[in-house]
């Protein structure tokens, strides 16, 4: 297959690569930068980001968002979803995008409730 048949633009066309190999290296650099930011934040743990948003630390929200960004570029450029037909793209991505947040939502809400019960109940857990 000729290289011209790949879609070579990332960041919504902001960055265009000349060949598929170049795009691969470009995505690697991007993923490395994101990972470095994550690790640096994880080690420093800036005091400003320790505030809470929706019962979770802002720092943790940043980690999760950066992870999803990384997952997007791995799937879209390394696994070539960018080059697949729309139907296949949806068949792969939609079940995951719907089911994973759904499961996470239910179980985390339930866990938070159990935490409240254990915290405010009359049974001592730490003895």
């Amino acid at each position, binding site marked *: 297959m000729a290289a011209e048949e790949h879609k070579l633009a990332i960041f919504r066309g902001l960055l265009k690569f000349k060949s598929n190999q170049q795009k691969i290296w470009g995505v690697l650099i991007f993923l490395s930068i994101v990972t470095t930011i994550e690790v640096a934040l994880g080690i420093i743990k800036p005091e400003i980001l320790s505030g809470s948003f929706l019962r979770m630390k802002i720092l943790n929200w940043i980690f999760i968002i*950066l992870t999803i960004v*990384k997952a997007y570029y*791995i799937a879209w450029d*390394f696994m070539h979803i960018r080059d697949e037909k729309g139907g296949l793209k949806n068949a792969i991505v939609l079940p*995951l995008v719907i*089911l994973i947040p759904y499961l996470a939502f239910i179980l985390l809400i339930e866990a938070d409730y159990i935490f409240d019960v254990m915290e405010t109940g009359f049974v001592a857990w730490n*003895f």
Partner: protein
Amino acid sequence: MEVTAKASTEEGPVWEGGNKPFNASYGKLMMWFFIVSDALTFTGFLVAYGFSRFKNINSWPIADEVFTHFPFLHGIDAPMYYVALMTFVLIFSSVTMVLAVDAGHHMQKAKVTFYMLLTVIGGAIFVGSQAWEWKNFIKGEYGALETKGGQILQFVNSDTGKRAAIQEFAQGIDSPRTTHQLSNGIWYKSETSLPTVSLAEVNKGFAASSNLVIRTEQLDEKGRKVVLSRGESLLKIQDATIVVEGANLIRNEYGNRLFADFFFFITGFHGFHVFSGVVINIIIFFNVIVGTYERRGHYEMVEKVGLYWHFVDLVWVFVFTFFYLV
């Protein structure tokens, strides 16, 4: 027909496998469906981890205090550096894989061989690193006591604020207790190896050194572990029932029991995926060398294995976030 390698079947009838839905071959579609279902399996694991963590949100172990080892840097506190390195290794082996797929599209056998070899090496380094992480985790570092209620008590030197190892401050008392073996006791009872120090020895050493205090599992508002005063510590240590060194599936010195269980289960399951990925990559590597795909006319097999390999990388990105960062 963008990135897919040209399959051997030409355009034929609609039925009897003649056409290709979504412009992807049968094998590639099935690999994608497997990946989707496997992704949901990992979701189940990680969400179960989240469940246990939210349930114990004020007493969960702090990951960067647990994973602080780096090869050849003994005694130096290096939180997460090694895991970050492992992440880079896996991302890099993902890149060599995608380069192999790209070379396959251009039918460059030598390049595919070289990149597949690099991918295999990267995967092997990752699995080895994972084994090393497990070894450190199982061995433990400071040791701890467990109370009747299953809470872990760790020790801190109140002068320096650093963790104190029970093996160092425990004071030996002459104890005749040895590990029970099948040969010298009741034949139907067995016992795993005893901890290096006994509870009485830890108690004696703790009473003798006045600068030691107990650190509990509980977290304060800032997310740090609560450290008791010396007086509270002397009371608290009376609740201890057992010495815990390192980690196993029943208890671990880092804190909540579920923490070690999930660590073994999730990183183990992921490590198993990496291991099978390495094995499959080796098979494909030899197939490339003997020219199987050259004769077949396309390198689509490399692409399918590549999908699996990238998926393993993708899962690690999430495991890394939820186990080590968050």
